[in-house]
């Protein structure tokens, strides 16, 4: 298969064979092409966040295959998974997940610390990306002192610092007002225009009804219901 | 991003200070070995001293090498060690079972 991301009969169970076993993802097969914008939509508990985390190599499926850029990641050793996560994915979390009491620049540069590049190169990249997102004047401020919109941009900057091919975003508009949501979607659209593949998990119609979304995948109870081309 | 440089610099400074102190110590040892130690040995030799003049609170603390092993308890039967310096001075090896040598058969 030539798809950028491809899942085949992926299942994820939490606490298998225990009384509190949860079937979060059930036999999901999905292809995502390069340059696509795909939204996983569904109510809370539908398995979209779990599927997103599996695609983003943050967990392993209980069964099934996940192929990213031609590599079957489900059974890769942890260090290779980390490399793929670092190089291929930029992750925007629902709650931003910025490190409190740490400056904007340091938060943005976090993915670069374990990479073999110099401090100077790091600062250069960080400065550029903050400039691109219009928050370079906040570089040395602590993130907890920023507004919601500014924190959102810091989270995006951190996701982009390694130049990833694929952006994954989990409920990116959950804590944003309409204006900030619009700003966010515009940034994602620009990234898609620049060639990035974007996968978003959301139950916000403002997102999945947006014009830049190419495909919507509906999930319920861990299963795919239908796939809509837009 | 200079914190690592500051830390490494401070650590290097601490190690340098420590090395300087050790080198100073070494030179002091050498210097005293040449002057003070022979002079003290002279005192020990001519005055026939056997102990350091440290704890003057009791006979057996002043001259622990000359005291017998029950000297701390000799004041009366069941007397307990009651001088603080006695708690610093370890009992002779002879009283410790692990170090007691087996007696030679006569």
């Amino acid at each position, binding site marked *: 298969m030539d798809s950028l991301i491809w899942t085949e009969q992926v299942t994820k169970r939490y606490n298998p064979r225990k009384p509190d076993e949860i079937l979060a993802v059930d036999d999901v097969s999905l292809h995502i092409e390069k340059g696509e914008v795909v939204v996983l939509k569904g109510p809370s508990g539908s398995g979209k966040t779990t599927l*997103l985390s599996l695609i983003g190599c943050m967990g392993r499926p209980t069964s099934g295959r996940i192929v990213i850029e031609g590599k079957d990641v489900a059974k890769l050793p942890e260090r290779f998974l980390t490399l793929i996560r670092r190089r291929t994915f930029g992750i925007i979390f629902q*709650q931003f997940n910025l490190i409190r009491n740490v400056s904007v620049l340091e938060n943005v540069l976090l993915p670069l610390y374990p990479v073999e590049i110099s401090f100077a190169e790091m600062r250069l990249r960080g400065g550029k990306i903050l400039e691109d997102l219009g928050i370079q004047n906040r570089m040395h401020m602590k993130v907890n002192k920023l507004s919601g919109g500014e924190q959102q941009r810091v989270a995006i900057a951190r996701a982009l610092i390694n130049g990833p091919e694929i952006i994954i975003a989990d409920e990116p508009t959950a804590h944003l007002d309409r204006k900030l949501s619009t700003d966010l979607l515009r940034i994602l659209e620009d990234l898609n225009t620049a060639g990035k593949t974007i996968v978003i998990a959301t139950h916000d119609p403002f997102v999945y009804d947006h014009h830049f979304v190419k495909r919507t995948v509906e999930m319920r109870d861990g299963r795919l219901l239908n796939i809509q081309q837009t | 991003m200079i914190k690592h440089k500051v830390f490494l610099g401070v650590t290097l400074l601490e*190690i340098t200070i*420590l090395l300087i102190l050790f080198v100073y110590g070494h030179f002091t040892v050498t210097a005293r070995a040449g002057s003070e130690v022979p002079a003290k040995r002279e005192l020990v030799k001519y005055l026939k001293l056997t102990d350091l003049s440290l704890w003057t609170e009791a006979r057996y603390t002043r001259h622990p090498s*000359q005291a017998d092993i029950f000297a701390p308890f000799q004041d009366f039967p069941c007397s307990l060690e009651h001088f603080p310096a006695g708690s610093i001075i370890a009992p002779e090896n002879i009283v410790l079972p692990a170090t007691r040598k087996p007696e030679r058969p006569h």
Partner: protein
Amino acid sequence: MRHLKILEYALSSLLRRKYRNISLITVYALTISILASVLFLTHSLKLEAAHILIDAPDLVVQKLSAGRHDLIPSEYAKTIREIPGVGAAEPRYWGYYYDALSHSNYTLIGIDRNLPRLSLIEGRMPSGEGECAIGEGVAIARIVAVGDMMPLISSRDDVVLYKVTGTFRSESNILTNDLIVMGRKDLLQFFNLSADRATDITVTVHNPNEVTTIADKIKKTYPASRPITKNEIIRTYDAVFNWRSGMMLTIFASALIAFCILAWDKATGIGAEEKHEIGILKAIGWDTADILELKFWEGIVISLTSFLIGLIVAFVHVFFLNASILSPVIKGWSVLFPAFRLTPYIDIYQIFVLAFLTVTPYVASTIIPSWKTAITDPENVMRS
């Protein structure tokens, strides 16, 4: 480069809880400085004793009576001298004096002949009757100097005046602090002792390897005697200043327990915030080895800094400030206690052991609690 960057992040992480970590370093360094002070002090005193008591008499023969040290007939010296291998046997005259004025105990030594000029004395040794040389502790307690008259109360309850002809220099305090050296006849008169009795007998032996054999022979000749060899004298101070004994062990153990509590507190688990941070780092591309290296650096920064500071403080405390904090603990009830002027003998092996015992557990107690979180898949971060 990667390692330096992770170190940079570790330092940032520690600086986020600046005051807590500074307090931790302070307490940790203090604990290490106490441990190191005890080690430095005991090692220095042990080596000092070993180096200077090497010229102590080869044998000291005491007489025991009902298990207690009794005066020994001086004629025993003649018999001992005749034992093959014995070079010289001389009676030694010395005793203790309690000074009610200063509430302190002195050691009085009677000397029999003119001694050569000793370098560690200001003035001279006593050469005639009514003269004495005194240690610095006595001079300070009685506020006397060379040329002054010093009264002592004899065993007959008489006040006897002695002229101070010399005071021992402060460098010799560890040997002479409480000494009063006078002529033998003066001493016998002072203590009202008969001339045919001595405190003990010192024996010089031609061949040091035969000391034990000669001691056995003396014991056989005089069953009520107790010969003490020079080795036993030096070994006494090995034991006295062994850090594994007595009060030293108590101080050492207390400091070690305090340290263990510190390490245990760290080892009992990491907080939710720390777990979350590790999850974020893993999610954005840090692998397990990077996380563990981060924790390693955090542990090393605290423990190594504390260790080095503790060691410097201990060295300065013991060898420059003369162990002024520890010496009241060691002093006990001694009124006269020499001001330490310790020679900086350092045992590098002890320092490495101390480093191993203090740095390693702390680093381990920083890394190990994070291990489980570090090896967990970061998908939980998505759910937080």
